């Protein structure tokens, strides 16, 4: 078990972040905090990818002609760069929606909005 902790620590943290994020999205009564949870959820997945590309003692994949040396795999980095940009785009749209929802209902609390709606 200790052994697993030492060799797979990043993956345990990935599970932790995904769990925290999913909890935040589903449990937070406040809409802004749901979006924060969504971001944490996504970063957890990014950790999974970036860890997969890491090799002990690796340097960043900037190659000057010769290939000698240990490099981190560039592909996961590329994928995560794309995913981060997708994530911030989604966050921006979510926040715009939140501003409009606030303007209409005067609150960001999920329960309070539900009450206003059923009135």
């Amino acid at each position, binding site marked *: 078990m200790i052994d*697993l902790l030492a060799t797979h620590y*990043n993956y345990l943290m990935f599970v932790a972040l995904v769990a925290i994020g*999913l909890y935040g999205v589903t*449990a937070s009564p406040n809409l802004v905090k749901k979006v924060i949870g969504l971001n944490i959820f996504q970063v957890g997945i990014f950790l999974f990818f970036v860890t997969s590309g890491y090799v002990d003692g690796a340097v*960043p994949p900037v190659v000057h002609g010769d290939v000698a040396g240990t490099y981190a795999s*560039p592909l996961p*980095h590329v994928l995560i760069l794309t995913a981060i940009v997708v994530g911030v785009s989604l966050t921006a749209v979510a926040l715009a929606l939140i501003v409009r929802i606030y303007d209409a209902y005067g609150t960001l609390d999920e329960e309070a909005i539900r009450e206003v709606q059923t009135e």
Partner: protein
Amino acid sequence: MTPVSTSLAVILTFAVLAAIAAILLRDVLNAIIAFAAFSFGIAVAWILLAAPDVALTEAAVGAGITTVLFLVTIAKTVRPGGERLFERIAWRSVAIVAVLVGALLTTIRSLPAVGSSEAPVATSRITEYYLQNAYPETGVENVVTAVLAAYRGFDTLGEATVVIAAGLAVLLVLRQEAYV
């Protein structure tokens, strides 16, 4: 444990604690500050994982722009009052999360060890091909940039499209034609 993995473990633990704080703190402003700390910690983790491009992006996007957008949003809205510092625990969500966590934890043992040079990703012919051919084929030393713009340029076109779609989306949502 090598020095890198110790500092990595420390910074990841810090990030997880900051994430927990961001979710549990009841005041939204405090939650956003905790989230910014979380993003900053994660950016450091990317550096330790030899991913400076990702680190730069995380720092600029996560700790920078996203935080500013969050702040601008809550500047327009009212924060929940009350004395409690933390949220109540929602047990129904805990159950949903437990299902996912349980499923993911069973796979941990099957995953290759962190930093293993035997892992399929490290030994993949694709990784090897990029490291060997990116510079001769594109003249770009940073392999990440070469893959991003050349080998997987179609992804990157899609990514730019997502950004444009987000810009348009905010306009459509707020219905103001002044910008974009």
